[in-house]
């Protein structure tokens, strides 16, 4: 794997309001976290994460409102680095809303209001002087429906680096991003073709490559496989477990098998009587599925409701 991607690019530094210090030794940091993850016994019964590892992102008492309607309430949990955390729960429990709160995508919807804190390397991403654009450059997103730009495959991947003022060998970034998204071999001879000409599964991997190309630290995935056939779904899941070596992934999924197969940690959400989503239980995925603490969790994961 080319090493170019693990190095921080110049665009990350300097311009942002966020402190760049934690980002600068990225190569070392990623390597360190990789060792830690590898050393962590996944099947441990303890729900708490390794206290030595700084969480990739830390949500504190988060509530999101659409107008006067509270969509999620008092959400607190931290996301361990270099692991996959899945958000599961019935429709309307606020999983997507919560996910989009992490990189401030909800800011784009008029009438949304946020309470609480999202801490990223100790900085509150909702602090007044924080620019959401800078947040989204560090916390990327893959959407439910594959949404490649109506541009060539190459231009899709190159879009992020280009708009972020990347100065370097764009060809290399495009190639390594496509390789990491396990798409390179399928498209290397047709990079000038439209991204829309690909199959659904390929389009979604293209979207993942596009997200990787800006070298985020965290990738949010909102039901990334729900519009795909089983084979493409499996490919995406394999890709995710490959990607977590270098990235922290948070995924919303309706598919409980997917959460069980692909994720290390699971957050189970439900809708309260006030129709606001809240967290019922958050644990290692194995515990949620084999040894849930709450009856409600057990009912949900065994398919008795939701």
């Amino acid at each position, binding site marked *: 794997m080319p090493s170019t991607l693990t190095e921080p690019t110049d665009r990350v530094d300097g311009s942002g309001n966020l402190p760049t210090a934690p980002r600068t030794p990225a190569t070392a940091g990623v390597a360190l976290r990789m060792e830690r993850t590898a050393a962590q016994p996944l099947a441990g019964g303890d729900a708490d994460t390794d206290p030595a590892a700084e969480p990739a992102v830390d949500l504190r008492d988060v509530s999101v409102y659409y107008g006067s309607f509270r969509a999620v309430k008092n959400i607190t949990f931290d996301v361990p680095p270099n692991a996959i955390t899945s958000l599961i729960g019935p429709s309307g429990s606020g999983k997507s809303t919560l996910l989009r709160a992490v990189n401030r995508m909800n800011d784009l919807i008029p009438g949304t209001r946020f309470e609480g804190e999202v801490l990223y390397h100790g900085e509150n991403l909702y602090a007044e002087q924080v620019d959401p*654009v800078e947040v989204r450059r560090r916390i990327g997103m893959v959407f439910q429906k594959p949404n490649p730009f*109506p541009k060539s495959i190459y231009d899709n991947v190159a879009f992020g680096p280009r708009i972020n003022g990347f100065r370097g060998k764009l060809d290399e970034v495009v190639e390594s991003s496509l390789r990491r998204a396990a798409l390179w071999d399928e498209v290397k001879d047709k990079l000038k073709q439209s991204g829309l000409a690909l199959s659904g599964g390929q389009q979604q991997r293209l979207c993942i490559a596009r997200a990787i190309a800006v070298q985020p630290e965290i990738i949010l995935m909102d039901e990334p496989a729900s519009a795909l056939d089983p084979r493409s779904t499996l490919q995406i899941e394999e890709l995710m477990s490959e990607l977590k070596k270098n990235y922290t992934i948070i995924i919303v999924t309706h598919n409980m098998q997917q959460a069980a197969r692909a994720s290390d940690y699971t957050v189970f959400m439900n809708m309260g009587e006030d129709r606001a989503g809240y967290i019922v239980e958050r644990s290692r995925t194995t515990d949620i599925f084999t040894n849930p603490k709450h009856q409600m969790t057990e009912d949900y994961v065994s398919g008795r409701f939701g």
Partner: protein
Amino acid sequence: MQPGASLRRDPSLATALRGTAARHRRERVIGAVLLGAALLTVVVSALIILSLFGGAVDFIRQIDLGTLFADGWYPRRGEFDLKTLVAGSLLVTGIALLLAVPVGLLSAIYLSEYASRRVRRIVKPILEVLAGIPSVVLGFFALTFISPVFVQRLNPGTSDFNLLAAGLGVGILTIPLIASVSEDSMRAVPAALREASYGLGARRLTTSVKIVVPAATSGIVAAVILGISRAIGETMVVAVAAGGSGGAQFTVDPFHQGQTITAAMASLATGTDRVAGATSAFQSLFFLGLMLFIMTFVLNQLGDIFVRRTRQQY
């Protein structure tokens, strides 16, 4: 029991399945009426084109072909210099587009990407009211406001009547059309593409210019072509503000008086010129009409080709 033995055919069902004669007749009548309506438009178009051709041929027969290349357009004197009118039309259209394309596109980007829902609800109808202003009013505005306040200040000594004021007036008329059609095509760009762009850390301007506008290219090209057709076909503004109702000298200077194809037709048809001078003056009207028709026809075809090509790209 034998298979099929119990299958008794009901003759009344067979009749019922055939439907009633009255209903069949009604269907036929409806079909004929619709066909008639469609045919009517085709026939009317064909008749217009035929009469244009007929009149134009008469005109060419009547005149000395040398008069098509003179110093200016003076139908009363029997001087039918075509390049005067073509130059006038192109000049006015060019000036109009220089104003209407940037202003129209920027307003479209604002309305589609920047304005809140409330602002859009207020601004868009206002923009469409602008499109509803009668062009003779705008011609008057060009003559009494644009000309003295802008053109004559820009170039002192210009006559009240000039092509620049007329072109700007036509441009103002064209803005709402270009803004509205391109805004529609920008709003039709899926929100998912905008989200993808914002999710990659793009700013609003980057998203508008690099994602939304390219994705809406075909609609924007269509808007510009509609704008060109509108500007070329605009008559009253030019007739009022550009001067040269009796005729015009050949010019490519926007500070000059001038005449466009449409304005020349209007002044021919409104009477004064019809009686005076050579009789072929009236016939020239058909010839101009044919020219105008061919120009807009070619333009629309070009536009279609371009729109199709940009669509194929994606």
